[in-house]
């Protein structure tokens, strides 16, 4: 039945409130203390505890009638000296740890008021331990000792309190309940000013703590299995087990409960136990023990046996043993209710089990572990590292003690380097929140002060870029035994392939592979790979537009790394450095990729991207990795002189879109900005000339450079929402990529320049700067304007004017797409655009509704764009940080 704190009298409530109020005030005052203040208090407390270790041990024995006075004194000393040794140099106030390389600092904050339950089995040592932890961490504690250990605990608290206050601790920092009830505990566990419950006690107390809804530290019940394996040092093992199991008459919950012994050493081990003063029970005696020291109704140990000597237990149940018998050892043949001695026994009775194999031994240990001891402690004695490791893997215990005594080993600091404790976290297996040896860090709120860091960025371009008229001549400098030229039919027809062949070194075997002028699919790629393998090519020359160069990139990838799975490599990612899929680095072949672009738009000759058609799923996929970037780019305008006007306009606007989007990208950097700005300047100056005067070599050359420079910018800064819209719209209505970009462009500039509904997380930027970057572009172009807003408007106007010059339709409607068709397509367009990774680097995160509005703006056409909503009169500078 749940304990109801409502049954408390008014006087009792006032008393408890007084305790909490006093503790809260002490905790509040304690927050002002420095590390030095705290350390100044802790040391004399520890000395006081050491001084009174034996006195407190005697008090505990007198009151509880459990355990051994000498052992309790040792426990009190461990709880003070060993704990002090661990905490003395630990920082627990203010900055406790710094990670300068990560920009993170950990700052310790006290919890405030801790309500602490202490057990009957280790009463004073637990109090000493918790007092030291509390002062070290600047917390106040209200102790609630086990009712049968109230006096000794009160005395322990008094000793600690007086030492602490004498050396500067705030008054009221410790209080100890006396004559208290479960209702008192319930009241305090639910009190709003109690920050943490630290319940070291029986399952009932721990369950009550966790049920209170407060943060709680609890210990689980133990049932320590021990595997004594045949390679173990038997002399050491037997002495360790006796030492541990008899320590304080077995009251430490980490003490050994069932020893599983390999068959080959079983008899020898039992003989050694007997030689060292243990009584080995025969079957009848074992049955008698099982019936008497374990409650047959509950299956748990009888309280009357807890903490008693072996001889006293034997006398109680009518078992004849030698005087000074240390342990009663009882063989068992299984685990569970039918084998009563297989449960926890906090007294010097030890079960032993003969195992025929390692497998059986491990399984019995697992059974014991699950019979009431999950998450607590287990012990293994062995010299076989594989067995020790396996045992550690299969047993669910917060502490796996190797070749040492379980109880003293689990306490930490004596037989191993674990943290000294008197409270064993048992993890979720034991219904606890931690598997730790509870320590000072469990008494702290550790805050992380995380400074803003800038992600490492990069600027990567192909090793070699050759540009200007006749740059193709540089092919002469690339020795090759076997070269394959990947191209499309048009390049062959107009003689461009012949020009390229002319400059390949004479000794090179050259083969031409003509592919369709469309985005490649896996069949085209694999045909190319077949040719590369057949000719054992060491050089690939891609001659064409984006599709041809992309095809060549994928052929090279599959040629060099045949195991590469293109579908898998096209998996989406957010950050190139953290992507799940890694591109292969092991190469079976090597081929130089030389890209010669024959359009001035995509810039594929320098980008790390390749678009492929996935016919199986009816979609296009983009592969992105710097290993895809061509080794050599040739930007020779002679290959674009014959571009028709429409293609000149569409590819030129594609180039402008790359530059504008890279220019405002959240991944932009001074490196990419310089390229983006230069590309914008070149496009505005030379695209109209290229369009009107296709024969103008300078304009063609500059536009060809602009495409490459813009591609360098977006290869490192990525693109934005314009591309997401254009990809969706172009695919749905069969509109060329550059034209689709053009239809969206002024609307996207206006969208990005306005106050975002939703900002995009961008650790490398200080505030929202897209509008200012557009204004910088307007300044670069000499467009005039006094305010940022005016400059943005002028950039939009200039872009619209450029589109008009290039005879780009003013709207989607003007392209002959009916309103009804467009309206029907909108849901799919929006969905596709939102799924497109391009906008992930856009400065403004587009909402679905905003994507819809952008599509409609493009449908209505140019002139409809505004830098901000009509209702929003404030300028961007008024809203945004500068």
């Amino acid at each position, binding site marked *: 039945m749940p304990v109801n704190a409502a049954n408390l009298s008014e006087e009792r409530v006032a008393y408890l409130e007084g305790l909490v109020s006093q503790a809260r*005030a002490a905790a509040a*005052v304690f927050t*002002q203390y420095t590390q030095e203040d705290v350390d100044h208090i802790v040391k004399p407390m520890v000395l006081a505890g050491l001084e009174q270790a034996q006195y407190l041990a005697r008090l505990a024995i007198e009151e509880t009638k459990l355990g051994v006075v000498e052992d309790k004194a040792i426990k009190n000393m461990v709880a003070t000296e060993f704990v002090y040794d661990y905490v003395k140099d630990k920082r627990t106030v203010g900055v406790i740890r710094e990670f300068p390389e990560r920009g993170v600092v950990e700052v310790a904050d006290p919890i*405030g008021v801790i309500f602490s339950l202490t057990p009957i089995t280790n009463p004073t040592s637990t109090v000493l331990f918790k007092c030291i932890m509390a002062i070290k961490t600047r917390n106040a504690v209200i102790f609630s000792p086990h009712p049968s250990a109230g006096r000794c605990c009160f005395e322990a608290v008094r000793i600690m309190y007086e030492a602490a206050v004498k050396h500067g601790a*705030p008054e009221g920092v410790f209080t100890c309940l006396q004559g208290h009830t479960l209702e008192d505990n319930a009241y305090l566990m639910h009190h709003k000013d109690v920050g943490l419950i630290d319940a070291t006690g029986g399952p009932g107390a721990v369950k009550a703590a966790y049920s209170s809804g407060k943060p709680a530290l609890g210990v689980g019940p133990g049932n320590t299995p021990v595997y004594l394996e045949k390679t173990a040092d038997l002399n050491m093992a037997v002495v360790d087990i006796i030492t541990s199991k008899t320590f304080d008459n077995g009251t430490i919950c980490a003490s050994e409960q069932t020893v599983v012994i390999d068959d080959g050493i079983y008899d020898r081990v039992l003989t050694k136990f007997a030689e060292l003063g243990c009584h080995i029970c025969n079957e009848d005696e074992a049955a008698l023990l099982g019936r008497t020291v374990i409650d047959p109704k509950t299956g748990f140990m009888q309280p009357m046996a807890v903490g008693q000597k072996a001889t006293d237990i034997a006398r109680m149940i009518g078992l004849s043993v030698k005087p000074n018998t240390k342990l009663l050892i009882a063989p068992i043949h299984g685990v569970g209710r039918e084998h009563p001695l297989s449960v926890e026994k906090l007294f010097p009775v030890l079960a032993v089990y003969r195992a025929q194999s390692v497998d059986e031994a491990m399984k019995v240990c697992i059974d014991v572990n699950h019979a009431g001891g999950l998450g607590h402690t287990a012990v293994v004695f062995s010299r076989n590292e594989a067995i020790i490791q396996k045992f550690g893997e299969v047993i669910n215990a917060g502490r796996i003690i190797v070749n040492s005594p379980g109880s003293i080993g689990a306490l930490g600091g004596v037989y191993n380097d674990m943290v000294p404790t008197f409270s064993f976290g048992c993890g979720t297996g034991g219904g606890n929140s931690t598997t730790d040896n509870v320590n000072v860090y469990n008494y702290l709120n550790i805050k992380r002060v995380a400074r803003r860091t800038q992600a490492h960025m990069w600027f990567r371009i192909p090793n070699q870029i050759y540009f200007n008229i006749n740059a193709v001549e540089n092919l002469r400098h690339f020795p090759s035994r076997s070269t394959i030229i990947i191209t499309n039919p048009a390049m062959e027809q107009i003689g461009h392939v012949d020009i390229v062949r002319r400059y390949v070194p004479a000794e090179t075997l050259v083969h031409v592979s003509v592919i369709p002028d469309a985005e490649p699919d896996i069949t085209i790629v694999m045909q190319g790979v077949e040719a590369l393998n057949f000719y054992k090519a060491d050089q690939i020359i891609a001659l064409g537009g984006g599709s041809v160069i992309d095809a060549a990139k994928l052929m090279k990838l599959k040629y060099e790394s045949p195991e590469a799975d293109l579908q898998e490599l096209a998996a989406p990612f957010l950050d190139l450095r953290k992507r799940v899929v890694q591109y292969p680095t092991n190469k079976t072949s090597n081929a130089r990729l030389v890209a010669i672009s024959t359009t001035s738009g995509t810039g594929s000759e320098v980008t790390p991207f390749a678009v492929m058609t996935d016919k199986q799923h009816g979609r296009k996929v983009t592969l992105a990795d710097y290993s895809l970037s061509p080794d050599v780019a040739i930007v020779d305008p002679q290959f674009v002189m014959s571009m028709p006007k429409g293609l000149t306009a569409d590819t030129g606007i594609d180039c402008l879109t790359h530059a504008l989007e890279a220019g405002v990208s959240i991944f932009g950097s001074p490196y990419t900005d310089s390229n983006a700005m230069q590309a914008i300047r070149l496009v505005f100056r030379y695209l109209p000339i290229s369009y009107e005067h296709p024969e103008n070599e300078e304009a063609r050359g500059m536009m060809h450079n602009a495409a490459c420079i813009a591609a360098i910018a977006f290869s490192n800064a990525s693109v934005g929402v314009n591309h997401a819209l254009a990809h969706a719209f172009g695919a749905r209505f069969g509109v060329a990529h550059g034209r689709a970009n053009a239809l969206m462009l002024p609307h996207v500039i206006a969208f990005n320049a306005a106050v975002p509904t939703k900002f995009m997380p961008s650790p490398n930027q200080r505030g929202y700067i897209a509008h200012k970057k557009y204004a910088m572009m307007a300044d670069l172009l000499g467009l005039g304007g006094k305010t940022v807003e005016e400059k943005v408007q002028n950039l939009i106007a200039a872009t619209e004017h450029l589109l008009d010059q290039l005879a780009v339709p003013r709207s989607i409607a003007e392209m002959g797409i009916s309103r009804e068709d467009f309206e029907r397509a909108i849901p799919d367009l929006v969905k596709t655009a939102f799924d497109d990774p391009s906008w992930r680097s856009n400065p403004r995160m587009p909402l679905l509704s905003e994507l819809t509005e952008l599509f409609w703006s493009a449908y209505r056409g140019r002139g409809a764009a505004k830098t901000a909503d009509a209702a929003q009169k404030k300028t961007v500078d008024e809203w945004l940080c500068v």
Partner: protein
Amino acid sequence: MTMTTVPAYLEIDADQVSESLQRVCEKLTASHDDVCLDFANVRRIGPDSLKVMEKLAGLAEEKAVKASLRGVNVNVYRVLKLARLTSRFSFLS
């Protein structure tokens, strides 16, 4: 008609915080004037001072006078906050 009153301005002695506050309590008991306590020199307060602060807050509420604290440092402010006293005083910079 209400009169504008100038609050009694009292400096808290950093070495005798509790005693200083106790004297303020006595003054407050004997008058109905607002009080302004200067904490500028107080770097730390103890549990006894907190008790007097609580008493002072109670007195001020009882007499319906305004008790203001001036120059309270962040550490002391945090103590007052944890002790749930900040809402019972006004704070001046």
